């Protein structure tokens, strides 16, 4: 029986490997917030800074609970910003800038995603900040990095995905090579950029703890994605072969329709793993015992015909049946799961990948937690995502020591 989670603020070692780290996040949408979400989920204290008024773009993005839009009703915003505190301020307002500077002066890490030059215009660029706080780490996550001719180019997740090479090759093994390149599902490419940025950031945090020195971490989303795609990419300079969406498939393996959906199959160890596949789907008489089927060259040569035969064999089985037999028979076949099947996956449920959340307005729901389990701490919901400016008073008055009058004055002037 899974324990239902309500926000629980534990500050012991159980609070995660990064407990004690203070982060100011001045970023929005996917990559920056996901980077700081990963760190927040591991125990860091994240103060998310949003512009007064509208806040993070993802507040205005579906999925909304009950499809009712509203700044605190987005499942996307929830996924990316649970476990964070939230304040509002305008860094281009002189008083707002001063508040942000004070916040950053007391932090270990700033995560920002502004176009290069924007932080400079607000006099909040790395070179200025490091003088205020010599141990500060600044992680900048932008579409093309801090240098180079494209550094000021704009890109949404779709564009970034196409900038990194994987886009041109998606979908691989395309039956429609004349159709346009695609992105991976939803924002998955941009989440990957957040993962990459979190890795680099933790190197800088390690160095900070060891030496007391800060530094600037420059993350280009293009290069983060490029690094996911090196084998196909490097065929060009190393071999003069230009991969495209049609050439990227196997002759007789890959995605295969079955009775109630699709599976994916393949093999590395020949002929063992190939034979294991034939065993799972059952071997129709005409080629089941054929010795030539152990000969890879023969199979490659007759790939198209073979694929047709395989299709006929796969389509009489359900993906559940095939998967069960594949696990028992050590065959490299897996079902293409739909989202509901992912959520209900016996494996992922048994692993505790989903936490049961008790939300004051949304009721109970399952929340995807994390792909890693630390022996010393479990994923915990410490707080719901912040409402816009929810922690202004807590952070500005209690943490930064503003008086009630100063706080009201700043609010009146539109600085926070």
């Amino acid at each position: 029986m899974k324990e239902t989670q309500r926000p629980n603020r534990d500050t012991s070692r159980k609070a995660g490997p990064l407990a004690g780290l203070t982060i100011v996040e001045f970023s929005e949408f996917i990559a920056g917030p996901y980077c700081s979400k990963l760190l927040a989920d591991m125990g860091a204290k994240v103060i998310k800074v949003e512009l007064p008024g509208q806040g993070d773009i993802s507040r205005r993005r579906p999925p909304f609970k009950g499809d009712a839009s509203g700044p605190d009703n987005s499942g996307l915003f929830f996924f990316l910003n649970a476990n964070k505190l939230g304040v509002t301020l305008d860094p281009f307002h002189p008083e707002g800038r001063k508040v942000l500077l004070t916040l950053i002066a007391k932090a270990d890490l700033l995560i920002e995603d502004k176009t290069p030059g924007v932080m400079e215009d607000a006099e909040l660029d790395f070179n200025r900040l490091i003088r205020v706080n010599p141990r500060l780490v600044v992680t900048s996550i932008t579409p093309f990095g801090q240098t180079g001719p494209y550094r000021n180019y704009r890109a949404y997740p779709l564009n970034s995905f196409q900038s990194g090479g994987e886009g041109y090759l998606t979908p691989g093994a395309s039956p429609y090579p004349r159709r346009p390149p695609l992105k991976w599902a939803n924002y998955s490419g941009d989440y990957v950029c957040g993962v990459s940025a979190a890795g680099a950031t933790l190197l800088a945090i390690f160095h900070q703890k060891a030496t007391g020195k800060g530094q600037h971490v420059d993350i280009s989303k293009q290069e983060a994605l490029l690094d996911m795609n090196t084998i196909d990419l490097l065929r060009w300079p190393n071999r003069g072969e230009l991969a495209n969406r049609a050439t990227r498939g196997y002759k007789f393996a890959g995605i295969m329709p079955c009775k109630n959906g699709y599976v994916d199959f393949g093999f590395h160890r020949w002929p063992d793993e190939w034979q294991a596949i034939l065993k799972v789907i059952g071997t129709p008489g005409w080629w089941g015992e054929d010795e030539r089927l152990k000969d890879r060259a023969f199979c490659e040569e007759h790939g198209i015909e073979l694929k047709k035969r395989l299709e006929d064999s796969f389509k009489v089985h359900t993906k559940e049946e095939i998967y069960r037999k594949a696990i028992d028979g050590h065959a490299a076949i897996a079902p293409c799961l739909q989202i509901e099947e992912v959520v209900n996956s016996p494996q992922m449920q048994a692993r505790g990948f989903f936490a049961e959340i008790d939300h004051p307005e949304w009721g109970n729901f399952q929340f995807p937690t994390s792909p890693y389990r630390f022996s010393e701490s479990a994923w915990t919901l410490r707080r719901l995502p912040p409402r816009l400016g929810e922690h202004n008073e807590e952070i500005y008055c209690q943490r930064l020591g503003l008086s009630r009058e100063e706080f009201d004055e700043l609010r009146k002037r539109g600085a926070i």
Partner: protein
Amino acid sequence: MTAGAIRNIRVLDFSWGMAGPLTAALLASAGAEVIKIESEQRIDMSRIGADPYTGKPSGINKNAIFNDLNRNKLSANINLKHPKGLELIKRLIRISDVIVENYSAGVMERLGLGYEVVRELNPRIVMSSSSTMGGSGPEVGAIGYAPLFAASSGLSDMTGYRDGPPTEIRYSMDIISGYTTFVAVMAALVSRQDTDQGQYVDFSSRESISILLGDAIMDYNLNGRIQSRNGNDDDVMAPHNCYRCAGNDSWISIAIANDDEWRAFCRAAGDPDWSRDPGFASQESRHEHREELDRLVESWTMKYSHYQAMELLQAAGVAAVASLTPQDLFTDPHLQERGAFILMKHPEGGDRFSVNSPPWRLSETPCTIERDAPLFGEHTEHVCCKLLGLSPEEVRQLTEEGTLK
């Protein structure tokens, strides 16, 4: 001496394939001393797999995939199934900081190197076990090649044209898994700076892909909606697609989120008559009529090369980026200036172009490529003599009896 952030960290790398070796390579690029434990008993599949550029096995020291994933490492041949080999490994564990392994679940325990044993030997060690399913659960025995966990994670089903099949996605999955494991290992190392205690990380590659679908999972769990393949569609943005440009299989991605961006696009496109159609007057109506809009936008993009269209639209402040081919990327002026590619010179594998990985620019502690991947067992003697204090004579004897093969 490298300038890397973790140059006082020693890593034992028991991993093979792609995901595990990448995690250890990232640690090595940041200055860690990474010792890859190898053996003739179980040779890393990417040493002996098909070479990506020839399609044929290339010899144990020449495979480009292996060499790209094992840069900066040392290689020591130690046979774990040999009792004396196991003893040597235990001595190494006492003087190391991190263990990275990605055997099938249970293999390290059977070898006598499960976390319980490791922690006894060295409570400060961070040990990471990564496998497709993680260390537990009913599907733990399933084979876990990258395209298979792309499928079981949900990503394949959700990627593709609305009327087409799911998409097979390959080794990129291993790379993402390797990067994500690195995040967990680094967090555990940071924690050790405070607590002086190591810990164990149980990692699932499949989950590292499913989590990238967090928003779709939220939609199912909040609203019961089952999202599936939808091409390049976005919930809000339109235009939001890849559009054909002049030339063969040449495309530009354009994404427009609001009225300002739409007006900027129209100006850059020379204010064509169709752009004043009232059906395109608001973000909502553009989204509603996006199929028609896509055709009209494409009638403009087809007049330009993908690079020309990118320059024109970016100059106007529109998020438009060419769909860059491998050839484009390799010759792209921006990536050239950023130094994204390097030429590696391997003593046996010869020259090859490679990606300057990891792509992070850390101003104080840059990641570097100090040397190419080790030859099989190249540093066995170094590790045994310098780190474990064996004499060359002992090394020769242990080699003869099969412990160091």
